[in-house]
């Protein structure tokens, strides 16, 4: 671990941008802390400018939000500081990562914990983006196009992101899925899903 740090520091000395990037490695969680502080600040501003009806009782609608906002600002800063001082372990750092899941309870009883998975250090943004894009597309298409097609498209998109590579086959599975859901929930349970452009046909 120490060797890693020194090489990072050496790289950092070489170029300023490289140094900044090395510093951020394992410290990306600082953004979570800052986000928390941001939400807290938003709550605080909104609470202060809240329109309170005159007839409300003495502990009004602003007390609880003010408490939560203060807590968020304090805790968010604490997290950012904590991460800045002690970054997440490097992915290849064998012994440094603590077993996940057992948590403090596991420590308390000197328990062991199985390896559930390696801690997430990298994210595959392309796959996440495809899944997210499919859901966004679904939200845009549901009302104009209807469940049958937009649902199938969503299923197809997610299956594709997760590694489906036979377009025709996956598309068939997706259409079967959305039709089964349509039959079970609209015909069976009486949910009211939009039928969209296929409205006349169905």
């Amino acid at each position, binding site marked *: 671990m120490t060797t890693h740090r020194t090489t990072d520091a050496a790289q950092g000395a070489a170029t300023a941008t490289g140094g900044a990037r090395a510093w951020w490695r394992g410290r990306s969680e600082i953004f979570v802390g800052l986000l928390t502080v941001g939400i807290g600040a938003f709550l605080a501003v909104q609470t202060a400018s809240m329109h309170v009806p005159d007839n409300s009782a003495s502990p009004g*609608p602003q007390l609880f939000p003010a408490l939560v906002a203060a807590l968020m600002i304090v805790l968010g800063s604490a997290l950012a500081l904590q991460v800045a001082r002690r970054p997440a372990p490097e992915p290849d750092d064998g012994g440094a990562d603590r077993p996940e899941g057992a948590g403090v309870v596991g420590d308390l009883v000197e328990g062991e914990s199985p390896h559930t998975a390696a801690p997430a250090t990298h994210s595959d943004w392309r796959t996440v983006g495809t899944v997210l894009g499919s859901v966004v597309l679904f939200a845009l298409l549901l009302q104009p196009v209807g469940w049958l097609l937009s649902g199938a498209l969503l299923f197809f998109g997610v299956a594709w992101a997760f590694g489906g590579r036979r377009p025709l086959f996956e598309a068939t599975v997706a259409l079967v899925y*959305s039709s089964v859901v349509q039959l079970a929930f609209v015909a069976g349970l009486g949910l009211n899903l939009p039928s969209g452009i296929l409205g006349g046909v169905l």
Partner: protein
Amino acid sequence: METFGLLAGGFAAALTPENLLWAFIGVLLGTAVGVLPGLGSAMAVALLLPVTFKLDPTGAFIMFTAVYYGGLFGDSTTSILMNTPGNSSAIATAIEGHRMAKRGRAPQALATAAIGAFLGAVVSTTVVAFFSGVIIDIALRFGPAEYLALAVFAFLATSAVVAQSMVRGTIALTIGLAIAMVGIDAQSGAARFTLGIPSLFEGISVVTVTVGLLALGEVLHVASRIHRGGHQGASPVNAGGTPWLGRGDLRRAVPAWLRGIGFGLPFGAVPAGGSEIPTFLAYGTERRLARFRARRGKGPDEFGDGAIEGVAAPESAASATAGTAMGALLGLGLPTSATAAIMLAAFQQYGMQPGPLLFERNADLVWALLASLFVGSVMLLILNLPFAPLWAKLLLIPRRYLYAGITGFAVLGVYAASYSITDLWLLILLGLLGFMMRRYEIPLAPVLIAVILGPLAETELRRALAIGQGDVGVLFAGPITLGIYTVVLAAVAFVGIARMRARSRAAAQEETGEDAPVG
């Protein structure tokens, strides 16, 4: 006795063909989500919530509780065969269970787990049925300050004590409280944090929050790492053979089952975030007992290569907590696990408020529910004892269809709950939030508990302060509130000290160049 009569009435209702069908669907579904890694009963109930609106409430709740129990039975199967616990409650089982499986004793491990889960469920449900009167008596003595104290207990127990990091846990808690505050304040009519968007006036629906955090968040999280190795290479240990426990196995398993139940019962009623603590306490105790026995020459200490006690005790502890968690939910209106929290939301959707009055107003439903817990436990034992290897076949479903199907259900459920596209956009935002929290190991349970108990905590706080005319001391008056706060403070202090010690021990090891002992 009165309880027998009520319970008999409950059985009459639970054994109707329709309710038996709901229980059966529930146990099938619960076992399935339990077996599949990464899914849990909380997510299953959240996804079911919107599509069951049209059902009669008794049928719906019978199904929900069956899912809850089924999840506990199912996740031990995956833990034992694959060493990938789907829920935190199965982590302790996985340790010795998987070692038993690797030694060729998978059928015995599965049988030990299934019988343990069954015993825990039956004993705890019996306790709840016969002590419901006592629970109600206690609950009726609670005023605003006591309810606030209970909510604070639930908040701190889930966020600061159980979570790995106090800061991350309490951040999760405040996120949940913030989500719960959106909308028009019921007491004063002030619009809070709605940004003038009309569909936010009614607040953010619990369905959207749970489905977004648990279902969509999980899908995104898995998507972010599926192409980076992970579980693809793992394959289940072969589980062929008869699940027959020999006399020697039984002699060791029976006391362990009973001790596990002893740990599980009290913890289910305490809002400490589910069954993590009791399962690990049960596991730790068995390990220490085995070491003790070995030292006195009274039997081998098999811990480390597949001890049957290490499977029996955590498993019965986990399902015993589920039973008493149902008791706390029904009698006090206090959810003590994520799944119970979502069920509380379900009660609210049907216009019912769990708590002492539920036993008076909806007695039929409560007793039918309790009776169906027994029915469901028997079904689960039958489904899991001989067929556990068959359930493991679920792991062969291609992941892409599994997650595509879950995503479809997530958007369907959220849309069907309100028929509003705004909720779909909220779902996407909350899914991203859930993804971010998973990535940084920020616990999700505190968010759910806060979203559901937050409004209650705020109402009771304001009510108590109004009664005390602004005197803060009124919050700490009375023996019950003082007792609750003392326990909270003691627990937080205990965990804080234990954690600091563990940290300094780890630091010392790092300095001497030793690796921390891992798994």
